[in-house]
């Protein structure tokens, strides 16, 4: 009986894998997750957050004093991170009015307290998404802010790190099926590769090439004109994402620590349970 079942389960598993592979996945860079418990990186991220993000975005659930957990003292928080007259026992609110923000940007910038968790999906991790998004801005003259984004097309948010990052060029390749009319007037579906080359000024050159075979999808490639600056920004964004990740669940560290104790305890529990079971069931035949 077990063999027949096993075969069916395996078949199911394989069918599910085949389906899962078919799912379309955005091309995301991996955030270096080792930074998650690197206190220096978290502190650098906190500085970047307070300087660059916490003007348009709030973190209403985050108390300043909680930054003790990543090794910052009240003195440091007050002198280095709080720019207004807030006290360390308050939460990270902002002065910008929601309605003004909506008028200015077309959309109220979301609160960032749990943003990493909010961007988690079954397909990708929220940290990878935000890490790619913050580094995925390119100049595009067709948008209102003059910036566009490879993972979030027509994003309302402008590029915050543009001065630090230096000029970059982008090659965006998209393979799609298009309806093409041939000489005798009938239309048919044809795989077309569209390559858009954005220069550092946001001017775009587009080429269309029909493909005989291949698959649909989109790919992008950045070329930095100031590689040293771009690398520095990569590191800075990685630290920032580490901070955002920590902020979305500040209790995660203690959770893991208690979890280890709980698992160890349960191994003991199982050992005692095994022994008890054996002793009590000795006389059952």
């Amino acid at each position, binding site marked *: 009986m077990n063999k027949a079942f096993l075969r069916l*389960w395996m078949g199911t598993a394989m069918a*599910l894998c085949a*389906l899962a592979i078919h799912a379309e996945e955005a091309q995301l860079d991996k955030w270096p997750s080792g930074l998650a418990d690197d206190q220096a990186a978290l502190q650098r991220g906190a500085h970047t957050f307070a300087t660059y993000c916490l003007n348009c975005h709030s973190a209403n659930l985050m108390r300043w004093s909680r930054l003790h957990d990543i090794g910052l003292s009240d003195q440091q928080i007050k002198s280095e991170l709080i720019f207004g007259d807030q006290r360390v026992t308050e939460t990270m609110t902002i002065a910008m009015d929601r309605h003004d923000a909506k008028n200015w940007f077309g959309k109220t910038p979301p609160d960032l307290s749990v943003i990493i968790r909010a961007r988690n999906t079954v397909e990708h991790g929220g940290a990878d998404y935000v890490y790619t998004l913050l580094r995925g801005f390119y100049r595009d003259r067709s948008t209102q802010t003059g910036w566009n984004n490879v993972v979030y097309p027509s994003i309302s948010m402008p590029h915050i790190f543009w001065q630090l990052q230096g000029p970059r060029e982008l090659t965006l390749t998209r393979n799609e099926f298009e309806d093409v009319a041939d000489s005798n007037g009938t239309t048919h579906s044809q795989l077309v590769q569209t390559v858009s080359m954005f220069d550092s000024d946001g001017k775009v050159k587009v080429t269309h090439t029909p493909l005989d075979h291949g698959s649909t999808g989109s790919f992008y490639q950045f070329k930095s004109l100031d590689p040293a600056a771009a690398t520095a920004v990569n590191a800075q964004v990685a630290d920032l994402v580490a901070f955002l990740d920590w902020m979305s669940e500040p209790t995660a560290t203690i959770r893991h620590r208690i979890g280890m104790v709980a*698992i160890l305890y349960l191994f003991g529990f199982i050992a005692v349970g095994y022994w008890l079971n054996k002793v009590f069931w000795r006389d059952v035949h």
Partner: protein
Amino acid sequence: MGLHQTRYTGLMGWFDARMPSAMAAFRQHMSEYYAPKNFNFWYFFGSFALVVLVIQIFSGIFLAMHYKPDSAQAFWSVEFIMREVQGGWFIRYMHSTGASFFFIVVYLHMYRGMLYGSYRKPRELVWLIGWMIFAALMAESFFGYLLPWGQMSYWGAQVIINLFDTIPKIGPDLSTWIRGDFVIGDATLNRFFSLHVIAVPLVLIGLVAAHIFALHDVGSNNPDGIEIKDRLGPDGRPLDGIPFHPYYTVHDLYGLGYFFLAYCAVLFFAPEMGGVFLEGNNFIPADPFQTPSHIAPLWYFTPFYSILRATTSEFMYWIGFCAVFLGVLIYLRLQRRALRWFVAAGTFVMFCLMTVHNLRDLVDARLWGVFLMGMSVIVIALLPWLDCSPVKSIRYRPNWHKVLLGIFVAAFLILGYLGMLPPNPGRTLLAQICTAYYFGFFFLMPWWSRMGVFKPVPDRVTLAHART
């Protein structure tokens, strides 16, 4: 005024003399309840379900101390529990992980019943009450899932309540009445809170008690599917029975260690379970003006949700012909003329409603989807009467019965998986095939379950070490 004659001494004796029913209940349900001695792995899940119920009630009490059922505060109060309440994250994850584990455990418990025919005579009521627990559990989790007031909470509830809209005539008014508003709002949140923390839990506890009473009246089934009460020893006790306490209390305690290992591994190291137990979208506050691009219910509803989505108007033609096939089979089984007429007329009406174009405007595919989704849950309750196999346990049934059951499990899992994904034509077709199998498995059971060569059932239970 004499005291009850007690068999205990000391404090226990003092207590028993004044309230003999307490110890009598303990004896009836624990120390002198005889359970078959050949329970295997699958028999853990009933006890586990009881433990999860206790976890949910316990953690729920503490959550309700800090949670605010107010549409302006609900989302933030949950995050407040996660951050500012001492140990709040632990209580919250206990509850959210417990909800998913409740369904894992209950599904496995139900599968056990299907493996060994535990719903067969005389245990029909045990199964029926168990099915009611399952239905109450679904209601409980549906109400509870609105409470965090995230995007998925909001839009998931929206989709489910809108299902009532499909009912002709009264539908729209009915769904407004359920919501207490024209959209899901504060009124909905408050009533769902009330239903979640008091109404349904009371029903659940009552049903669980009834489930156990009904079981202990008829006695437990076992992996061999034979009645241990048929073979009594000279002392009047079943030869193959052992007292539940201490044998199975100790045994379940040991099994509970493994259960808690899995539960804690998720709770402490993957409470989101990769976005399946806690969905990313639910960390965004509910926004009535922004519909998420993809709405899916939580994983434990997705098999049924898949059936709802698979029911397209093209699929109804197939369902119509399947209904005729089933109608003919039933017709041929019946002897009484009146019943035959009734079945023939019923089949004809169903076929017309499903396939004739004009009638399908009256009863559209959406309504049939809701109907089939409801049926897919209800049909589980009918198992005791659908299964006509001469033996209870899968062990003594023909091998191809095991294959049918295996495919059924595969179809159920595939439906569940598809329900989490956005639909596309290939996935819809696969879901339709699985839906057809799901219903075919149940509705044709009165025929297929009698067929084949059955193995001889032993007189006495077999123990694992004796079998191999």
